[in-house]
């Protein structure tokens, strides 16, 4: 999916598809060892690209890929949040409701847009528009690019957490197709609140993480200076997120990145969005909702320790996914992962609670 030629900043070694399967068969230590410094720099360069101020944001992308764009404003509760935009658009002839984070490309505009960090109003505006799309039977296309929801006092006192939770819940049960595109920074819950979709696409230099690398560093390393290590450890690049199946597809960016070729990037995205809108339009409502539920239901992996003390992996997909990870072009960091499989079993079998049904 990722075009090697288009990778602006090459990350480690990226084996050609033909060699990937063969490599996955080999034990982990065979993975090419990539210099940690080099890897860190490469991942960090991608984080920087995802954050590039000239990267096209929701409105810029729509300008290039859609027609008849009508922006709507306000959450009908408190105010209009400029960090989230939404409204109607026509993508390659297909009518849709769009919602997306919006950053600015220069200081004043960025201040007005709060650097793409929404307050609760932003998410409540999104919810209002999702509901509208549902009533009008229009599909929803969302564009995700935020460092995270705004963490300040104003945001907290108006219930940013509740607005995020509610937005996730509304998206999860929305009776109309949702296509999500991670275009830049997929920053935690503030991103997810616009990113629960039937299909989740990411641009090649987009990143997606549970917490900002700076945040992770200040908690796990007790200093934000370790942000680069955190970025590597969290596997936040689009290719890795694809391997983890958190996203479904990576759309390559033109040669030096989306910020230098916004129109070309938008064109590439338009084709993929249109493709998925068509595919989803054919699904009946029940299948649509069941498939979306299943998409999130299977996220993550765990083991089960049986009363007999044996560790069983609940689903067979576990090893395959690790392999996919290996194949994702970041074989280097995965090497350690395989060696650290939790293989220990419980010490005292007799004391294990049995699974009881009531």
């Amino acid at each position, binding site marked *: 999916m990722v075009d090697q030629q288009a990778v602006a900043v090459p990350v480690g070694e990226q084996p050609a598809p033909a060699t990937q399967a063969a490599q996955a068969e080999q034990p982990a230590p065979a993975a090419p060892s990539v210099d940690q410094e080099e890897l860190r720099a490469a991942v960090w360069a991608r984080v920087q690209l995802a954050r590039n101020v000239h990267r096209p944001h929701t409105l810029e992308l729509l300008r290039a890929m859609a027609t008849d764009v009508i922006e709507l404003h306000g959450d009908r509760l408190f105010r209009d949040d400029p960090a989230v935009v939404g409204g109607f658009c026509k993508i390659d002839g297909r009518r849709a409701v769009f919602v997306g984070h919006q950053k600015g490309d220069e200081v004043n505009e960025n201040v007005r847009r709060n650097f793409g960090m929404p307050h609760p109003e932003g998410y409540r505006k999104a919810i209002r528009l999702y509901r509208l799309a549902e009533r009008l039977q229009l599909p929803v296309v969302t564009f995700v690019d935020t460092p995270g*929801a705004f*963490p*300040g*006092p104003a945001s*907290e*006192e*108006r*219930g*940013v*957490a*509740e607005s*995020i*939770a*509610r937005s*996730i*819940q509304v998206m*999860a*049960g929305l009776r109309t197709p949702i296509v999500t595109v991670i275009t830049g920074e997929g920053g*935690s*819950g503030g991103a*997810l609140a616009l990113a629960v979709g039937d299909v989740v696409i990411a641009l090649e230099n987009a990143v*997606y*993480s*549970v*917490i*900002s690398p700076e945040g992770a560093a200040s*908690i*796990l*390393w007790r200093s934000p200076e370790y942000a680069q*290590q955190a970025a590597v*450890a*969290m596997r936040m690049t689009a290719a890795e997120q694809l391997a*983890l199946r*958190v996203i479904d597809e990576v759309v390559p960016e033109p040669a030096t990145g989306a910020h230098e070729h916004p129109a070309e990037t938008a064109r590439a995205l338009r084709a993929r969005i249109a493709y998925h809108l068509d595919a989803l339009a054919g699904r009946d409502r029940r299948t649509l909702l069941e498939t*979306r*539920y299943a998409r*999130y*239901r299977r*996220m*993550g*992996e*765990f*083991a*089960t*320790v*049986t*009363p007999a003390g044996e560790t069983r*992996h609940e689903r067979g997909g576990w090893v395959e996914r690790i392999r996919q990870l290996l194949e994702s072009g970041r074989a280097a960091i995965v090497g*350690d*992962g*395989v060696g*650290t499989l*939790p293989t220990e079993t*419980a010490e*005292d079998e007799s*004391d*294990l*609670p049995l*699974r*009881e049904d009531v």
Partner: protein
Amino acid sequence: MPIKLPFGGRRQSHPTDLWTQCPDCREMLYNKQLDKNQRICPRCGHHFRLRVDARLAQLLDRDSFREQDAGLESVDMLGFVDQKPYPERLESARKSTGVRDAAVWGTGTITGTRVAICVMDFAFMGGSMGTVVGEKVTRAAEHALAERLPLIIVSSSGGARMQEGTLSLMQLAKTVAALGRLADAGVPFISLMTDPTTGGVFASFAALGDVNIAEPKALIGFAGARVAAGTISESLPEGFQRAEFLFEHGFVDMVVPRPRLRETLVGLLRYLRPATAAPDKSSGNGTSPMSRPLSYLETLTGREPKEAVHG
């Protein structure tokens, strides 16, 4: 005590020292006395955190708890290493806490009313939500839906578990989607937020109770202080992100001191009963509209609740 822990020999729910200092009033408290007092400071009322077994014992009828899915264990999908590899952190957390992960779920009764209940344990890696916690919350919700039992989730968590990356983030969507189905089916959910309920746990299931309850002075907020301080430059006001702040701003229904939690739940469960089964299945009148999310409230307005047990 109603629950069996997965490892041999039940460990103390707190360090073996005899004394604990109250962080609020600085009083030295004798641990045995503190336990007898539900781990509330007898002098100033400070609520210490409760471990899972103590919480279940406090809320449920004696010996009524049946744990489910006790064997679920976290897997290191990412090969995550910070200052320590994730599997090592898991192992030492298991050893020091005696539980397998940061949540336990099962069924039990509260004065005879059957409920599905999921309780988080802050002692295990800060109660952080990785795949196992997300799975347990989701299974609790799905079981509550299938059996039409009221669901209670007791949160105590710093948020999503960073060591599982976006897979932890996806647990927000997984749990909330399951709760959405519960709400659509008219099965009630009570969220009890205890110290602390922050980050991805507050921004997902914890915020979405039909009734939200908080323990006094519990830290409840979206952004942890360290995250907020790193992201924004303004310093955060005092008293902010406490249970009372949330109450004032309309995000929790009530702040209830620990000794009154059980009776509060008993009172609420008289109203928060799952909507009666679909008309074609119910033996009585077939009038209750099942398709609408709030139908259970409507069915309750007209009649007095009778026996609380729901089969």
